[in-house]
């Protein structure tokens, strides 16, 4: 029965700890400046995309992924299936059908470069970094290959080189961090885009532009910038003419950053472990003392026995 009593204490203290600490961390999060105004982003206006898939070609080209001639990307049959990112495809364009006018809507998919990335907080060797410019980048040099980042990513973006037996890597869009570090250069996909779909710039400015477009053209857009608040905000932002769940986005993610879910747990565990250690230390002392007493009694008993044998009193 001791166990259930212990559990009871654990639970009540867990609840108490969450009540006290949980609120506190929220306050701290509010105070923290999470608007990094210098960070870049890309605004994807899905109403302009014509599905040419040149961005896929340019992405493969820049990232040295196996590529095909640009002509091959005109093949529309790939749109028959909804595709996702894979080890050699950091970005894919999918086609959805607008139920109102049956026109196609093309949606580019790639890493969203979260403001507070789930992959980063999931990684147990800290292989992900959010750079000052906004890119979430991955370091294959320390990756152990547990693939927890892939489990944690709410957008199902990171892919894995499963066919690489010795040095497999997690792969995903790099936000062309090795292009944009030079003044005036934009990601490969943005550069090649022949329409006004992709726009690279300061994230805060892009949000302003997005809202302006919605204001100026309320019939063209639904009043929502995807990525502005989703799970704490993402560097890539989307505009759409129909609700986002109809063009392949998850709209039930909420505004809370994913890392907050694990942060609270880790904090509580540490607090509980420190608190719980005292009764355990006490119990261990007690147990050792008992052990010692028993040793002593046994020794005395043995001595007595010996003494009896020789017929002497001690």
């Amino acid at each position, binding site marked *: 029965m*001791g166990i259930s009593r212990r559990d009871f204490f654990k639970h009540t203290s867990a609840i108490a700890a969450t009540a006290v600490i949980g609120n506190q961390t929220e306050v701290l999060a509010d105070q923290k400046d999470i608007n990094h105004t210098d960070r870049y982003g890309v605004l994807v206006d899905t109403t302009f995309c014509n599905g040419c898939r040149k961005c896929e070609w340019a992405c493969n080209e820049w990232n040295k992924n196996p590529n095909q001639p640009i002509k091959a990307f005109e093949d529309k049959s790939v749109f028959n299936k909804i595709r996702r990112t894979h080890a050699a495809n950091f970005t894919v364009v999918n086609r959805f059908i607008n139920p109102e006018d049956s026109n196609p809507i093309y949606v580019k998919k790639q890493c969203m470069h979260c403001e507070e990335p789930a992959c980063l907080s999931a990684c147990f060797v800290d292989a992900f970094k959010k750079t000052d410019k906004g890119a979430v980048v991955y370091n294959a040099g320390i990756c152990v290959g547990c693939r927890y980042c892939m489990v*944690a990513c709410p957008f199902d973006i990171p892919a894995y080189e499963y*066919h690489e037996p010795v040095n497999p890597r997690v792969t995903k869009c790099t936000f062309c961090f090795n292009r944009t570090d030079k003044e005036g250069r934009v990601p490969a996909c943005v550069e090649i885009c022949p329409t006004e779909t992709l726009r690279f710039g300061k994230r805060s400015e892009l949000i302003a532009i997005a809202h302006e477009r919605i204001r100026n053209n309320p019939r063209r857009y639904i009043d929502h910038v995807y990525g502005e608040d989703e799970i704490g905000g993402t560097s890539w932002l989307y505009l759409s003419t129909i609700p986002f769940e109809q063009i392949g986005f998850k709209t039930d993610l909420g505004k809370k950053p994913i890392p907050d879910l694990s942060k609270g747990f880790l904090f509580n565990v540490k607090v509980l472990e420190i608190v719980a250690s005292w009764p355990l230390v006490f*119990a261990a002392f007690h147990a050792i003392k008992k052990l010692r007493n028993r040793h002593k009694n046994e020794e005395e008993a043995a001595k007595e026995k010996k003494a009896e044998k020789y017929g002497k009193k001690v």
Partner: protein
Amino acid sequence: MERKSETSSWVRDKIFLGMTFPEYLKSNLTLSNGIAAIILIIAVPVMIYRFVYGLGPSTNLSDTNPWGIWIGVDVLCGIALAAGGLVMGTAYYLFGMKEYHNLVRPAVLTSLIGYLFAVFGLLFDLGRYYRLPYPMIVSYGLTSIMFLIAWHFALYIIALFVEWSPALFEWLNLKKMRTLFSKLAVWATAFGVIIAGGHQAALGALFVVAPGKLHPLWYSELLPVFFLVSAVVAGLSMVVVESALTHRVFKKQVEHFDNAAFDRVITKLGKGASAALFTYFILKVFGVAHSDNWTLLNTPYGYWFLFEILVFVLLPTFLFAYGARYKNVRITQWTALLTVTGIMLNRINTSLIAFNWNAPERYYPLWTEVVITIGVVTMGILAFRFVVNRMAILYDHPDHELLH
């Protein structure tokens, strides 16, 4: 020459159970060893295949389903079922419940082997297995739940080793070491309680970061608590199952046992398991109520959820209570097996069946994955038997009987 014969007699005594090598080989020609040999003859080449050709050809893992049975079964089930050492160690060393004396060492050994082989199984899953120690020495992902688990696993394996080591030193006739480590074992147990509880909960917390991917009936912010409480249940049940099995398999070693006392202890464990299971059941119901998921119960996944918590949680709660009330050991033992199955089902549901329930592609294991898992479990059982046949696990070492 003399030295050589000394060593060979040491090997004979310690490794070959006092037999000559040919005798020892002959004694191993049994049906169970034959089955084990067949399993290993198939599994070992498959294991090598995995390392040579990589995860792609040897698994059904994909970008959408990055985790398969090596995580869901080898690690999640393995660690839950290895909670026996935690439960028994606490009861015996820290709460001083002397009646569990005979169950402590087998439980600690089961846990030690369970953890070691869970990590061994994990090696197959890790893309770069050779970097296993990286989170300890190269780079620290302090915000990661996985980081906490990695450290806790490493520390807990050391703690379990210390808890188990008195048996090792008895076997090696190192009396001073034994006395020293018997004391350390108490500390290791106290330390182990903290970290074992922490990482059992953390295994549940792994999935807290994937709210959109796990079916709402299984997803809850209470997942860490579910995992912790059900690990206590699994630990208690596993001690019952394991003692039932070892008492049958290693009959000779427990000849002089007081069977009535053993039965009493088993039904008492059942009583504890019943209480823990009931706590777990209430928490699960609380989880459904908290997220207001009642309507989801009337869906196919809902029936599956109800099957899990009614047949494998609520039913054994009553069966354990019945076993304890009427001192029915048989019922307690079968119920323990039912409960262990249920906890495994829960881990498999959380990590595989209810995970990615709405994803465009579902995961099912490739035969090679199943073969490697069976191979890992077989190796674990063989390791357990190797130790039990040689060391004082099920009985007291004759030199140290007085100390207990």
